[in-house]
């Protein structure tokens, strides 16, 4: 081909691929690389050094943090598996009344802001919690919620929906013939479960477990609120960032790199284990549900509904406290709307900011989700493979890391003209982009490429074909992706805490600060506002998503 022909062929999607690569390179790769490099910089001299890592791996302060992070993340994941797997098995293999209710509650638990769970448990089991006080009347002392076991409890109840929903999907998609064959070959029901069913759902369980583990490692709000001297890597990184303010945040970065390395190791390990286990098969013989009888049926229902109710408890408590009569931070008995009055008086900025930031980010997310998913699904080039890989990165990199990257890369640089608000919007956009892309990709995979080819063949230029044929067809995926992006953006805490300034406070930050100040009424009211936004979006996702459960994973 001649050069001229090449130029004529440099069409829309090639240009878009370059645009995407530039945006991701500038907003994702550059800040992360800047952060990673900081880990190897000596804060005093500015020279290159391995000293930061040596410090992390030799000083007890950091080693304990590492140990603590691993401890709560592993136990939290284990706890989530222990309740998630049986729940999935019961709902997938037996008739459980109120099944839609159970999965709806599980999804609400999944999308509720993570730090709400932590402080709600303080209100129940903290030193002045109502459960604590209730038992104190009888002279009984309840176990304290503060410390490692409290964090593990919150992680377990917060993350089990991942295990539950993924395992359930996998169980529902498993051919009944496998279990029938096992039975036919002489397995007892228990043997059948342990030797056939469990190994077959292992990929789903392990994927769910990895998500739990990665989120637990990166979680900042829960250990920050419940830790009380029990420090994890995420709280250490944040504290280091705060104390290094003004200087180079080298220790905060080094600790974050260790966190990322743990997440990535876990992911690689799981990939390795899964590589030899691919159990895809056409669902020719869908599983049927059995009915459990007598006391076992009662016990099963008690377990299933009990789990989701306990997991929902923090949310209910938060809503409940928001309606308690308060005088300043003190509850004075009875019900009232003072807390709501106060948020309107003191925190309208936070509410308005949250909506502006999240909505602006969602506009960007939706636009780029459409383009990126098209490039990944339809274009078979090295660049599209690279973009596909980059979409994993925001999942793995803790919010603290990207936020520090944004501060060190863009503060004071030419991009600073867009201000902190602009940076927060770009940060939300890049961190939540994968939700939009994933949802849009699954929509696009169901659209045959011949649709776009037909449009082009009939004379529509590729860009036009995309907007008048492809976009209307992937609209449900785009909408679900936008909603997921909105839910996760408006609940963002850890990176906002690092970036925000006086004029750019958001609801999660305000809640976090209120909890630290003991202003539970204020925190409750703001949390309720957040929960309502989230709940409305969840309802909308139910309306638009083809498979309502898997849309949230």
């Amino acid at each position, binding site marked *: 081909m001649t050069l001229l022909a090449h130029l004529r062929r440099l069409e829309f999607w090639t240009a878009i691929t370059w645009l995407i690569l530039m945006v991701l390179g500038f907003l994702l790769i550059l800040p992360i690389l800047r952060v990673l490099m900081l880990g190897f910089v000596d804060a005093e001299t500015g020279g290159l050094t391995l000293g930061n890592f040596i410090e992390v791996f030799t000083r007890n302060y950091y080693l304990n943090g590492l140990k603590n992070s691993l401890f709560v993340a592993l136990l939290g994941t284990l706890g989530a598996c222990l309740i998630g797997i049986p729940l999935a098995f019961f709902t997938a293999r037996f008739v459980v009344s109120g099944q839609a209710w159970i999965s709806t509650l599980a999804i609400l638990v999944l999308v509720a802001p993570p730090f709400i769970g932590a402080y709600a448990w303080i209100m129940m089991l903290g030193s002045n919690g109502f459960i604590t006080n209730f038992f104190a009347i009888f002279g009984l002392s309840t176990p304290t919620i503060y410390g490692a076991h409290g964090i593990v409890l919150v992680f377990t109840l917060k993350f089990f929906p991942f295990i539950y929903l993924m395992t359930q999907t996998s169980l529902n998609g498993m051919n009944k013939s496998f279990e029938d064959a096992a039975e036919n070959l002489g397995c007892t029901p228990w043997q059948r479960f342990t030797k056939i069913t469990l190994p077959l759902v292992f990929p789903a369980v392990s994927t769910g477990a990895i998500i739990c583990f990665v989120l637990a490692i990166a979680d900042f709000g829960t250990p920050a609120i419940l830790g009380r001297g029990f420090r994890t890597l995420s709280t250490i990184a944040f504290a280091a960032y705060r104390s290094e303010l003004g200087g180079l945040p080298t220790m905060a970065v080094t600790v974050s790199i260790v966190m990322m390395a743990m997440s990535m190791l876990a992911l690689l390990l799981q990939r390795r284990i899964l590589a030899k286990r691919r159990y895809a098969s056409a669902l020719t013989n869908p599983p049927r549900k059995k009915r459990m009888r007598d006391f076992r049926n009662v016990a099963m229902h008690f377990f299933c509904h009990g789990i989701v109710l306990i997991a929902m408890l923090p949310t209910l408590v938060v809503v409940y406290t928001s309606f308690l009569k308060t005088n300043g931070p003190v509850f004075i008995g009875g019900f009232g709307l003072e807390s709501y009055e106060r948020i309107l008086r003191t925190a309208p900025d936070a509410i308005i900011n949250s909506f502006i930031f999240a909505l602006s980010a969602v506009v960007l997310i939706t636009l780029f989700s459409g383009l990126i998913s098209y490039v990944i699904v339809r274009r078979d080039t090295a660049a599209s493979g690279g973009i596909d890989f980059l979409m994993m990165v925001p999942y793995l990199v803790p919010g603290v890391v990207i936020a520090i990257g944004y501060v060190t890369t863009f503060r004071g640089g030419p991009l600073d003209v867009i201000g902190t608000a602009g940076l927060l919007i770009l940060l939300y956009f890049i961190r939540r982009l994968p939700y939009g892309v994933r949802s849009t990709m699954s929509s696009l995979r169901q659209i*045959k490429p011949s649709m776009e080819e037909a449009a*082009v063949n009939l004379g529509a230029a590729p860009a036009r074909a995309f907007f008048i044929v492809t976009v209307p067809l992937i609209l449900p995926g785009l909408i679900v992706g936008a909603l997921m992006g909105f839910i996760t953006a408006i609940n963002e805490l850890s990176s906002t805490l690092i970036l925000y300034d006086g004029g750019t406070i958001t609801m999660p930050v305000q809640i976090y600060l209120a909890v630290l100040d003991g202003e539970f009424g204020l925190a409750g009211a703001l949390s309720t506002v957040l929960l309502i936004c989230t709940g409305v979006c969840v309802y909308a996702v139910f309306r638009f998503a083809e498979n309502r459960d898997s849309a949230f994973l």
Partner: protein
Amino acid sequence: MASVEIIGLRKLYGNVMALSDITLSIPSGAFYTLLGPSGCGKTTLLRTIAGFHAQNAGKIAIDGTSIEDLPAHRRDVAMVFQDYAVFPHLSVRDNVAFGLKQRKVNRTEIENRVKEVLDVVQLGHLADRMPHELSGGQQQRVGLARAIVVRPKVLLMDEPLSNLDAKLRVDLRAELRRIQRDLGITTIYVTHDQEEALAMSDIVCVMHGGIIQQAAPPIDIYLRPANRFVATFVGANNFLVVNRTASGAKLVSGGADVTGLIHDDAPIVCAMRPEDVRVLGPAASPLDGEITISARIREVSFIGREMEIFVETDSGEHIKAVSRPDPAIVGLAENSPVTVAIRPKDLSFFLDSSDGARVS
């Protein structure tokens, strides 16, 4: 109406040669079929003409104008897709009007032409339906209407009937051919179904391994296959070993001398169509001039309109014959001795390789 000229077209996927220097010429108004097994390059060729694949080398010209470097949306070749590709979010009417709108045709003309073409494909009464309310056959009529309404220079069809059930396939086949003739539109048609290819085409182009094996009218493809691949792929064939010696060539089975029938001295095989082979029971005798081979019955299957006879020659080769049912043959037990008879003019000879050229 337009002629198509393709010269030296080459397409590589990595190291795999998907199209190997394809050169062909399609006269204006012809129904030209690309036939071959899956992976032979026929769909790649069609999609390269449509502009969905970029060629590595070669020229594609319509009426003498090069189009190989034009983007797909400016090629003016309309395509009918295997999976219909009817836009699910547009009504039948809007689907058909789609290409006209891209061409900025004015509204009254769009209306008239859509109505006209819907009548041609007998869908006038369904204009306001949505695609999911239509059957597969109706959807493919929409696909056809949408393509021909823009009056393209060339119509491309990518196995348009293969997703339909057998009965509908035969009906729609005749209808497609009628519409194509009425409009006189140059058509390139891809199929792996040889019956479809033979029934519909002016010219059948048999492809294999990215190479054109033979391009000729259907009757020539069947009666005078250019090489052993075409002889194997189109219709059925028996291949027998030929023994070459200094003095001539003889069939190993039966020993008939075939020296006079061939004009090459490389290793060759002899081919015979099952329908040309006669299997004679003990009571029957061969006609004058027929070559005979003694054999034994392996299996006879009676399938209604005809019977299929599988025999093994005394030297161990297998021959299949197809003929009208004959109770005397159907009743023969396994291993019964029979005589295979065939007229020498029904024999073809090919060089002994999978795509060996014809040598008779």
